[in-house]
């Protein structure tokens, strides 16, 4: 396949790339959410420890 054929997939490009594009988006969002949750949890633990340290 040539590169231009690859992009437009014999006129089916919209469907193929919508499908794969959305999938990629979902993967990126999922990874971002997991990373974010970890940061949030660590922050929560730090705050807890600081609060206890003050006692």
């Amino acid at each position, binding site marked *: 396949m040539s590169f231009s054929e690859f992009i437009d997939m014999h006129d089916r490009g919209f469907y193929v790339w919508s*499908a794969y594009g959305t999938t990629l988006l979902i993967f990126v969002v999922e990874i971002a959410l997991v990373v974010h949750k970890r940061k949030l949890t*660590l922050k929560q633990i730090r705050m807890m420890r600081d609060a206890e340290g003050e006692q």
Partner: protein
Amino acid sequence: MAINWFKYSAPSTFYALAGKLAPWFAAFAAILFAVGLYIGLYVAPTDATQGDAYRIIYIHVPASILSMFIYLVMAGYAALGLIFNTRLSAMMANALAPTGALFTFIALWTGAFWGKPTWGAYWAWDARMTSELILLFLYLGFIALHASIDDPRRADRASALLAIVGSVNVPIIYYSVRWWNTIHQGATIKPTGVSMEATMQKALLAMFLACWAYAIAMTLWRVRSIILERERTTQWVQEMPEAK
């Protein structure tokens, strides 16, 4: 050699293990995705009947299989948690749910974009797509129930029971929809109308393994955060280097 199977059922040990394993699975996933997409989108030939739109199956089929597989694993962990009263099993079930739900959504979405150019409609109410939609509802129900209960133990156990009830229902729902479908549509749309060449099979296998490795990596990373949150009052968490 006696293996202490229960060593890793302690959240603290599993936390460390998950941390070591996850990057490997992520790396495998990345490589397999690259290989699978290269073969599937570039190397594999255009299908005679369906044109290039068929290439969507390289993500649609793995996502569907995984969506069902993850649900079963989730229900399995749920059952373990109920029977053995292990907190970690419940945590694993909760870690699996979002990934499973997202794969279900991907299956539905990619299925719709495959359906439109191939059979003329984004949605078709055929047995598989309808059952997949119901599976998404089951995942969402599980997540919603767990989120609605404040007490963690009750939340774990209630959602575990729900997951098990759901998993018993999945085959029943599938067969009832399939029956309904054959009555209403006669010769149903058969999503497997693509002749499978060797390159196609390789791409499909690579993509399936890629999604599987990805799911494992995501679940392991997610469960680490869940463990930290639930065990935050314990000493090992408080003294963790990352939390300093």
